[in-house]
């Protein structure tokens, strides 16, 4: 029984990993950005003073960014330029190195800036700095939606 559960778990994780990275990179990158967006929503509310500042929460935001940035650029393989209502622009594939570097910079900024956070003021500064990466990437590599 134990073995069966283990096998099922491995199979489930394996299937997830395949879905996430192999067969459907478009769904995987949307999922990744959705999670990032949830964190950013929390962060924006704290930074704006619409929600109370929470240090643990604040640090989790930067950790989530760093984690997402570690794999995000891999989710745009050749052949995933279209389909699934993707908003990814051809600029990603045309400027592959620049795109990968931009994602890496986001992760690196999340690490360095996140380490400076001790209170609301330091959070606002760090969050503002790291999220500059959001706008600059969306400006160049994502089709207009908002």
């Amino acid at each position, binding site marked *: 029984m134990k073995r069966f559960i283990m096998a099922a778990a491995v199979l489930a994780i394996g299937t997830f990993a395949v879905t996430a990275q192999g067969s459907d990179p478009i769904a995987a990158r949307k999922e990744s950005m959705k999670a990032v967006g949830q964190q950013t929503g929390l962060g*924006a509310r704290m930074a704006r003073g619409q929600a109370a500042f929470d240090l643990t929460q604040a640090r989790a935001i930067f950790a989530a960014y760093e984690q997402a940035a570690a794999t995000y650029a891999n989710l745009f393989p050749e052949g995933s330029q279209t389909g699934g209502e993707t908003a990814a622009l051809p600029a990603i594939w045309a400027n592959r190195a620049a795109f990968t570097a931009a994602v890496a910079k986001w992760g690196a900024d999340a690490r360095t800036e996140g380490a400076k956070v001790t209170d609301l003021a330091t959070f606002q500064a760090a969050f503002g700095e790291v999220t500059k990466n959001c706008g600059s990437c969306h400006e160049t590599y994502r089709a207009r939606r908002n």
Partner: protein
Amino acid sequence: MIRRLLVLVAVLGVVAGAAFWWLTMPQRLAPAALAGPAPNVENGKLVFAAGGCASCHVTEGQPDRTRMGGGHGLKSPFGTFYAPNISPHPERGIGRWSEADFANAMLKGVSPAGEHYYPAFPYTSYQRMTVSDVRDLFAYMKTLPADATANRPHDLPFPFTVRRGLGLWKLAFLDGEPFRPDPSKPAAWNRGAYLVEGPGHCAECHSPRAFTGAITADRRFAGGPNPEGAGWVPNITPHRDGIASWSADDIASFLADGFTPGGDSTGGAMASVIRNTSQLSEADRAAMAAYLKALPAREGRAPPRR
């Protein structure tokens, strides 16, 4: 008989030509309209941000948003317009312009040489601006660095190359009306209406256009396909297709930091717009939000699902 007919055709041709000439004559401001106290450069800086000048006119390929050498290409169904140099460079920019030249460009869409500008330069919105804001803006722009970038000609097919023809377009679509406050509405709404409809020129991107290139009035602010390429310009009316679920505070905060209530960070051309609106005062952003929240809800085409 034939000769008579030819004479008639010739006469009709001359009459039509004269009518065209007369109808398409560039209209200028009366010189007295520009009277007033010394311009306020500080306010001019805010008008510059509210007007989004840098978004189109910044020198291509470099990040300094005070260098107004131009070169950005604005794609449209008519062709591609290239933003000109509006830095104080004497030959390449507008360094030799008088205040009247500048005001006629902003409020009448007429160049110092008396030619019509294409409405890719959004004077359809800028015409609502106060003369005093326009004078302040000009005073501020004179303090910016001169940039020697040469103007790139627009990439347009005939007949759109005939600027004189724009006189007819203006007759149909440029009403020449300044912004008129509505005394029955709160001061913040009026300030917001001025910023959104005038310098902010929000409707220019956030509205669908008819084949004439004019905004479809009953769909104003209801968004539509991106005329510049891939993607979508969102509906910014309080309709469920648009921003009905956003509070006024959500809108004002978005104009400051670019985050949607859902935690998305805006992209495309709006990322650049946020760099402008983030320079405004909190009160001005709140005023813009109040005006947008009070717009009639208009249906847009539902945006594609994420």
